[in-house]
């Protein structure tokens, strides 16, 4: 667009580029599917429309249609250029390099000269008068980094420099320049240009004398805003010769500097980024339509530790991801066996070759395939268990495992106990009770299941072990949480109802007991309930200290909390297709979470653990269970191991 200059030099405001996102999408697709490493120049078309904004001139635009269509891409439109706005096309050329170095190494002056030469030749040959579109050309150099989705690019709009420069003689609105008749015919001609496919650039110098600035108002040429002027050009002697090409200028400035531009489109092109924003969609819709109090932030930031990566572990991991949990650690020392993929939903046959991959690592891989942005970690480790004594050579590594488990529990917010034996849950339960971590247990029988949340540990806060070494027990007593604020006892853990210490349950079992055979439907049901229970805890104002509620048919649909009740235990039975919520308080003689045991652990640390592991009766002695048993036996009560279907009353020892 020409404007009046100071003095009388006619100055030209350079064109500015605008690249529609679709252009980069099309270029990437062509590069990947068609061009490959071929970097020969590509013809492109730029588009220009008359100015419709009073202050800002229109840009030269590149769209998806600027590139020839990719015939493999079904969704591309046919090659008819959309005609919904004035769109005059400008021929151009694109040099897309394969590397960043190649991009910088392009001979920019040379390329510009070559394009200027084309214009010069067309002026000489007279083609420029027939079709003034060829007077403008677009030169684009680019480098598309298709790993990071960065597009480096630089436009040049080759223009022949006039030396000496042209001078402006007169400039007036078009309505004052033309007679009424002339005005009408110019108007019609301009409006017709819209529809013609062989349109000339509207703002051009033609005949090197008359300059017309066309401006639009609402889609029609506006003769009041458009300007017409007269300029004086000194024709150089050498111009008659075709070889004597005037100098060319035209590289686009980037904020005033002569450097290329860069645009990053990872957000709209990187599949991982797209997966992340799509993953949140369901949860956000849920929050908007059904559950306004849903706390997504807490779910996104939660760190979950899953002890066991079998039928329960795989399902819990998937459910957690569905709820938006991104940080998941799986611990398991086993390998994927051929029978596993059917019931353990993260594994496929590929994980079973060569003896089977470690479950922990295969599970992490699987989670990443489902959702690349998950932060999953796999730990291959065995959990030390009471009743499985360790020899003195093994002692050191077992102690290290204990320490490692302790550190893992410390660094996570929620721990799921999903192993396949009772005794493997003992040590994690103790460590979680010590740290007041949210702990959820799921356990399967053949056709029944248990899902429960452990109550808080016996102590309110973690004491400073060094300072309170001498009288830790006394100090601990002050902090004892036997009762919640309401005077209720704290809720129990998995072991609170037991009268015997956990011991070796795996040797001397029959085959079907060793293989933990369960009805396939149980694991998904129990895992799903475990995760829903967790979400309930997270949305309860008291968290781990929340009291237990029992499902009651009379409560109807009105719940205090939007997610419903928060039970302590859920026991289900498949034969009855029934499930019930139960409540169990903590026991003062619990082998895992009673205050005696936890303080012993705080006092003696790993030595206490070792003793519990190596001497099966130690725990019973410490907790007084031995004594209890003796006195009970003297009354000759018969202990029933089966847990009977109870009514709503608490089960207390």
């Amino acid at each position, binding site marked *: 667009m020409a404007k009046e200059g100071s003095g009388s030099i006619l100055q030209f*405001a350079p064109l500015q580029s605008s690249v529609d996102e*679709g252009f980069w999408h099309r270029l990437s697709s062509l590069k990947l599917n068609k061009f490959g490493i071929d970097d020969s120049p590509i013809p492109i078309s730029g588009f220009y429309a008359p100015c419709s904004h009073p202050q*800002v001139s229109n840009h030269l*635009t590149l769209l998806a249609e600027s590139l020839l269509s990719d015939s493999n891409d079904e969704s591309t439109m046919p090659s008819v250029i959309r005609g919904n706005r004035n769109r005059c096309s400008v021929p151009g050329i694109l040099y897309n390099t394969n590397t960043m170095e190649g991009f910088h190494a392009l001979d920019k002056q040379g390329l510009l000269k070559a394009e200027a030469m084309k214009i010069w030749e067309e002026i000489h040959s007279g083609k420029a008068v027939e079709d003034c579109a060829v007077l403008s050309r677009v030169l684009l150099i680019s480098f598309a980094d298709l790993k990071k989705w960065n597009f480096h690019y630089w436009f040049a709009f080759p223009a022949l420099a006039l030396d000496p420069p042209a001078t402006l003689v007169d400039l007036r609105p078009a309505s004052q320049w033309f007679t009424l008749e002339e005005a009408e015919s110019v108007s019609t001609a301009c409006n017709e240009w819209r529809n013609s496919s062989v349109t000339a650039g509207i703002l051009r110098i033609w005949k090197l004398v008359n300059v017309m600035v066309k401006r639009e108002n609402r889609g029609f040429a506006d003769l009041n805003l458009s300007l017409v002027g007269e300029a004086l050009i000194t024709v150089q002697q050498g111009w008659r010769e075709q070889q004597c090409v005037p100098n060319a200028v035209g590289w686009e400035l980037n904020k*005033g500097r002569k450097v290329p531009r860069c645009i990053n489109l990872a957000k709209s092109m990187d599949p991982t980024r797209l997966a992340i924003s799509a993953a949140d*969609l369901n949860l*956000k819709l849920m929050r908007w339509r059904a559950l306004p109090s849903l706390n997504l932030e807490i779910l996104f930031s939660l760190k979950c530790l899953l002890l066991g990566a079998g039928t329960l572990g795989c399902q819990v991991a998937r459910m957690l991801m569905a709820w938006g949990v991104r940080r998941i650690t799986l611990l398991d020392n086993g390998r994927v066996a051929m029978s596993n993929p059917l019931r353990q939903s993260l594994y496929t046959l590929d994980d079973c070759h060569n003896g089977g991959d470690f479950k922990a690592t295969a599970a992490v891989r699987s989670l990443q395939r489902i959702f690349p942005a998950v932060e999953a970690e796999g730990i291959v480790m065995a959990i030390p268990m009471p009743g499985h004594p360790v020899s003195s050579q093994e002692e050191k590594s077992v102690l290290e495992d204990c320490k490692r488990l302790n550190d893992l529990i410390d660094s996570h917010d929620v721990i799921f106990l999903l192993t396949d034996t009772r005794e493997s849950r003992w040590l994690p339960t103790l460590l979680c009770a010590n740290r007041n971590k949210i702990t959820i247990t799921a356990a399967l029988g053949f056709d029944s299941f248990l899902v429960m949340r452990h109550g808080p540990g016996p102590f309110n806060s973690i004491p400073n072990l060094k300072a309170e070494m001498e009288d830790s027990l006394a100090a601990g007593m002050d902090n004892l949480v036997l009762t919640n604020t309401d005077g209720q006892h704290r809720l129990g853990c998995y072991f609170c109802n037991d009268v015997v210490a956990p011991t070796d349950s795996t040797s001397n079992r029959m085959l079907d007991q060793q293989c933990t055979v369960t009805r396939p439907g149980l694991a998904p049901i129990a895992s799903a309930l475990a995760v829903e229970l967790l979400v309930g805890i997270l949305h309860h104002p008291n968290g781990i200290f929340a009291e237990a509620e029992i499902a009651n048919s009379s409560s109807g649909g009105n719940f205090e909390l939007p997610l419903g009740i928060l039970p302590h235990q859920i026991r289900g039975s498949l034969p009855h297709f029934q499930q019930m919520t139960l409540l169990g308080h903590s026991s003062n003689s619990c082998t895992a979470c009673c205050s005696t045991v936890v303080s012993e652990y705080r006092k003696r640390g790993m030595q206490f653990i070792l003793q519990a592991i190596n001497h099966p009766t130690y725990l019973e002695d410490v907790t007084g269970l031995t004594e209890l048993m003796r006195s009970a036996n003297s009354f000759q009560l018969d202990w029933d191991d089966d847990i009977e279907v109870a009514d709503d009353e608490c089960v207390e020892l």
Partner: protein
Amino acid sequence: MDVLHWDGTLSAKDFRIGAFAFAQKWESCNLAFPPWSWLPCPKHPWLAPPEEEGYLSLEKICISRPNEEEDIDQISQIDTGEEETCCSRNEDVLDDATLVQSNHHELHYCDFHIVYSSTFRVPVLYFRAYCSDGRPLPLDEIEKELPACASKELSKKWTFITQEEHPCLKRPWYKLHPCGTAEWMKLLFLSDTANPKFEVVLELYLLSWFSVVGQVFGLRISLKISN
């Protein structure tokens, strides 16, 4: 069809009829904006496109607030002094005739597409925003340009912005989620005491729909049209 028992949705064919009615009314009465165009979106490009499949498009609407400091028309000599350039300095051509525009006024533009959703059987407003050089704008920057009161009100009740793949262009665009649309469209028409015929409903459907969703962007429809 009896409007009383109508569920607020449209068939694909009705959408096309309604879309054209809307575009016509818009063009004749809404002077501040360019007209909507109908663009075909054939499911099978190799067949002759069936008449129904397409969407309405309104592009390059400037959504930037007016800026007080506008000095685009500064005239100055080209600065050939210190340039970090990949071009060799010797070959730079000194050109007094090139206008250097300092203080480029950065404007933001928005494209709107009204696309028919066959799942929800209602129109859906797709949009995206970008700068004058084509760089796309993320949602949080778009939201800065939107009229503050409108977007909060509406996003609570009727609308919800999500990012999904544009069904025709196969690129991520933002859209106002349609899952409440049928309900409130039905309410809009039922609250009208005169029991209108369905033909009338169809003619006014998109207009009424747009009068609600357009408010998120401050696009007001002049009263003339609603007569």
